[in-house]
């Protein structure tokens, strides 16, 4: 047989996958490893999905998606961030942000074009850039800087081949949000070097300590930005696979071209449900956000009291504590924690080299689960501490 595609062959399987297989087969696991809300989609949205099936909305929609939905998105973005997108030409309904990202990369990149991404970042970014023929250039970000990409360090990574900068704030896996000031500088750098910005803002509603800044709303950004967002996190609709991309007409047109030949359109059912979510789901969103915020406070304090060094995350639903002082690698720590105490977390190195020494803990789970998880982590850390002392011996009286 002839070999498969080289790029795909050379892409390592997701670091999360292996871990998932072990955790999935164990009983009594408390999972902090899930990158999705623990809420079921609000009933009004589900009911609206059922209604649309009953009424026979089972056909294709236009490639760009239901006009009503695009109009509702345009209105919502305007009311939240004063953004202006024409529903006819500047909004495309996608199969989650995942498809939007793939389309944006394929529409923007030529073979060998470089794309700057922060390290650590969401697991899909680097492989998707490579699948689109691009070359990912990782720019480190550090816990000392609350994992905010530094504009100057980013600028130093720019070469003549750089085409775009891919950002995600609030961030998975770190829970970091960006300051408006920093984002302004990033936009200035992008403009100075004529680079595109791809902004994955799927966690926009989950920004707890500062109001979310949407990148295309910044001066000089709109013309060069593809804004990606969706319904998964704010409306707890992960399994519906429904998102959208907004940008200047030529980019959205190019993305639509790929979309029409590969996906045709996003699921009609999901589009109908999303319409209900955006029109009637605001109260649900605000209740969920308030609940995440409470859990965030509780969980971060708990992790610190359990012997982990955890900064206060300001967005998304992740804490990204350091486990460096244990002397274990992220993977060793996460594996041992799973085996000994049955708490599933994701090793930070799954998100890039700068994630090493950290674990990603999702607090999108009940307060009872969080309490139990903190107790188990405390027990685990206490045992680790004792073990290290025994090994070195010197510290014992």
């Amino acid at each position: 047989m002839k070999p498969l595609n080289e790029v795909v062959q050379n892409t390592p399987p997701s670091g999360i996958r292996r871990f998932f297989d072990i955790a999935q087969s164990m009983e009594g696991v408390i999972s902090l490893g899930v990158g999705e809300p623990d809420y079921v989609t609000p009933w009004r949205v589900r009911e609206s999905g059922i209604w649309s099936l009953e009424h026979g909305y089972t056909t294709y929609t236009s490639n760009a998606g239901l006009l009503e939905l695009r109009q509702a998105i345009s209105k919502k973005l305007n009311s939240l961030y004063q953004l202006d997108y024409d529903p006819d030409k500047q909004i495309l309904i996608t199969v989650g942000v995942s498809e939007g990202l793939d389309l944006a990369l394929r529409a923007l990149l030529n073979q060998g074009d470089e794309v700057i991404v922060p390290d650590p970042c969401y697991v899909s970014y680097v492989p998707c850039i490579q699948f689109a023929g691009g070359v990912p250039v990782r720019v480190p970000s550090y816990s000392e800087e609350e994992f905010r990409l530094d504009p100057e360090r980013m600028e130093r990574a720019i070469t003549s081949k750089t085409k775009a900068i891919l950002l995600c704030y609030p961030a998975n896996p770190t829970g970091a949000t960006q300051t408006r000031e920093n984002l302004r500088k990033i936009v200035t750098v992008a403009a100075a070097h004529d680079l595109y910005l791809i902004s994955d803002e799927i966690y926009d509603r989950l920004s707890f300590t500062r109001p979310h800044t949407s990148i295309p709303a910044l001066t000089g950004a709109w013309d060069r930005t593809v804004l990606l967002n969706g319904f998964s996190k704010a409306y707890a609709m992960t399994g519906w696979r429904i998102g959208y991309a907004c940008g200047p007409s030529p980019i959205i047109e190019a993305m639509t071209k790929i979309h029409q030949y590969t996906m045709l359109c996003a699921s009609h059912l999901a589009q109908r449900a999303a319409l209900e979510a955006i029109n009637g789901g605001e109260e649900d969103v605000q209740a969920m956000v308030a609940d995440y915020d409470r859990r965030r406070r509780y969980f971060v304090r708990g992790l610190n009291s359990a012997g982990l060094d955890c900064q206060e995350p300001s967005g998304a639903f992740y804490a990204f504590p350091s486990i460096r002082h244990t002397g274990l690698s992220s993977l060793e720590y996460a594996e041992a924690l799973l085996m000994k105490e049955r708490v599933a977390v994701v090793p930070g190195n799954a998100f890039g080299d700068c994630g090493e020494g950290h674990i990603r803990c999702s607090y999108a789970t009940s307060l009872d689960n969080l309490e139990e998880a903190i107790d188990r982590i405390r027990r685990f850390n206490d045992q680790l501490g004792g073990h290290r002392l025994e090994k070195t011996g010197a510290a014992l009286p």
Partner: protein
Amino acid sequence: MRDLLVLLEQDARRTPAQLAELTGLPENQIAEQIQEWEKGGVIRRYKTVVDWERYGDEKVFAFIDVSVTPERGTGFDDVAARIYRFPEVHSVYLVSGAQDLRVVVQGRNMKEVANFVAEKLATIELVNSTTTHFLLKKYKDDGDLFTEAEVNHRLVIAP
């Protein structure tokens, strides 16, 4: 502060220390605020939501639509008070529509409830008529589900 009430309404057993963690407000301020609400009647009392059927107790509830003659000066208040003072009466609401009062009556069995309606409720001077609906199954009561909770289908680890 409203957030504090929401949290207490969800779970009255939360301590000021826990509430401080959840809201980020100082613990002593929370304790003071709760006391103030208790005194001012914003917090009426704390109670437990019990599924008596699961415990094994038979309880019968009936919703009774009551049509009454309002009195000059006090309107419906006096006749409502004559009704709600009976310990058998679980709730009393003044409602719009064909009937005036909606009364929820609780008893050990159907006969007990029927007797109460026939002997006590219907015989009150200002009560014109009653229509009794017995409760057959409780699905959701005061925001609490009395059926099995939905299963969460999430995977253990996801990106």
